């Protein structure tokens, strides 16, 4: 014991090295991944463009301008105008706000529902597990898009105002998205529960709430984060698909999907590519960046891949 306390004293005299938090360590690893960092910066640029860009636009959203209909890109209208004479760039930025918000909100909602239900179901097992998992199975056995189409059609039938539709679409997307997440979290929790450190929490007499929220869920966060990132991409795509089909966000509220829908005829498609190329490119690049970032995050978080 004596040699030991001497050792302790020696170590004390040295400068104390505070180890960085796990998140910082992850970020340091992520920084080494060039593709992921480029994606991250592109996404940041997209956010800035969508949320701050409109304030610098000289054009007012939804203001029609009959004199300047269907103009090709020019110095005053960088990305041209549409068939009502509205500035495409301004609409693109506003649509970005809507699409990104929907993507992220839908992701948060499905993560919230999915991880909570998954954690409860994996932790308590028994009848609770049975009910939640069968519910998830039922939802998962129906293909997502037709389900969304059905719900979109119902919304149209009920004549829900365009500004509320936005929120309903977030709910719809998370309704379709949670079962996969719940299963993922449940599986994780089932395997974590058998770990000795969970037995230790039992011996220590911790409450169920503490076990779930302090011990189990934080251990699922790395995987959740990756899935959540990819989920945002999925939600943006689903929203775009729905809006393109006229069942998602409806005009005049712009979204990347319904902007492309506006070019949904032969003449516009052939003669006025500035109508559909900008929103299409925006969707494509955003989704690709999110996926690349998700991959990078997975590599950064997975200790087995650490180099």
């Amino acid at each position: 014991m004596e040699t030991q306390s001497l050792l302790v004293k020696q170590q004390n005299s040295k400068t104390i090295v505070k180890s960085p938090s796990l998140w910082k360590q992850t970020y340091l690893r992520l920084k080494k991944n060039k593709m992921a960092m480029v994606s991250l910066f592109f996404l940041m640029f997209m956010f800035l463009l969508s949320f701050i860009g409109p304030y610098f636009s000289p054009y007012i959203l939804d203001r029609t301008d009959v004199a300047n209909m269907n103009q090709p890109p020019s110095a005053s209208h960088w990305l041209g105008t549409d068939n009502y004479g509205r500035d495409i760039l301004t609409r693109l930025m506003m649509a970005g706000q809507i699409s990104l918000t929907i993507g992220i909100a839908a992701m948060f909602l499905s993560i919230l529902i999915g991880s909570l239900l998954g954690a409860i179901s994996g932790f308590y097992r028994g009848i609770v597990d049975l009910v939640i998992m069968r519910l998830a199975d039922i939802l998962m056995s129906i293909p997502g898009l037709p389900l969304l189409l059905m719900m979109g059609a119902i919304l149209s039938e009920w004549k829900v105002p365009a500004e509320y539709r936005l929120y309903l679409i977030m709910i719809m997307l998370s309704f379709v998205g949670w079962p996969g997440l719940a299963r993922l979290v449940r599986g994780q929790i089932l395997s974590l529960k058998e770990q000795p450190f969970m037995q230790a929490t039992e011996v220590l007499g911790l409450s169920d709430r503490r076990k779930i929220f302090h011990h189990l869920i934080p251990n699922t966060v790395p995987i959740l984060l990756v899935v959540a990132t990819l989920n945002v991409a999925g939600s943006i795509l689903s929203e775009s698909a729905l809006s393109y089909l006229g069942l998602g966000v409806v005009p005049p509220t712009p979204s990347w999907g319904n902007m492309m829908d506006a070019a949904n005829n032969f003449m516009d498609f052939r003669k006025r590519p500035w109508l559909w190329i900008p929103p299409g490119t925006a969707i494509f690049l955003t989704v690709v960046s999110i996926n690349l970032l998700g991959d990078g995050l997975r590599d950064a978080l997975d200790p087995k891949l650490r180099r």
Partner: protein
Amino acid sequence: MSDTLIEVSNLKKYYTSSKGLFKKLSDPVKAVDGVSFTIKKGEVFGLVGESGSGKSTIGKTILRIQDKTGGEVKYKGQDIFNLSKKELRHLRVQTQLVFQDPFSSLNPRIRVGDAIGEAVVEHGIVSKQEVRAHVLEVMEKCGLSPFHIDRYPHEFSGGQRQRIVIARAMALNPEFIVMDEPVASLDVSIQAQIINLFSDLQRENGLSYLFISHDISVVEHLCTKIAIMYLGNIVELASKEDLFNQPLHPYTKALLSAVPIPDPTAKRERILLKGDIPSPINPPSGCKFRSRCPSATNLCSEKIPEYREVNKDHFVACHYV
């Protein structure tokens, strides 16, 4: 009998698994098959046996981490399987467990200080403001440096992690600790440090241990009373002196003859056991040890030997003692 801390009588733990489509129960694995012993206050009780003899199962069952199949476990006269949820929480403070594997028994995402302190706060032993001081105190007792407090478990070596696990158990000021092969995964020099830490802590705080090990020399160093297990049963139970000076059960004799002596010129008789430990699903009839016992007779295959007190405080289960 006021100094009796733990009283285990005829404890049984069978594991069953359903197999096939119709959920027919398979034959149970009799991990612990009728075990009785008592641990007194301040006693270090050693539990020795081969892998699969049910040592860890006993350790986990007497803390009620798992359910029992039969028998009784009393802690200070109270049956722990009859406790309400609130009483059980109270028991959790008084009894602790130190795990075999220090790598998997610490949550990788929780800082060392939080791991040691969270249960203390949860049980209201120390307030949130004072917990850091309390944690530092316990860490120092267990040979950890103050600057370790904000680190994550993966930044430590096996021996240090085991100290963290011990500190986590000690932080609650328990009266009884089950040590489930706490040094099995450490190398010999670290083993010695940790074992000395155990005896220091035990002396200072008047703790009682149930020390599970498959290493009889470790147990000899630390324990006052030793039970030898074979295939879910205790075959011999005696004080350390009695067990080492006059082992009675043939299995104990074989175990003791296998302990290395650090003297190359010393000669001694080595009892070699044939074969492996039989399956606990289908143990031999009569005496479970007969299939490997050098002096087994017909009687051993017919009758289960009674677990009886041969000398004072010296229990053996063998027909020929």
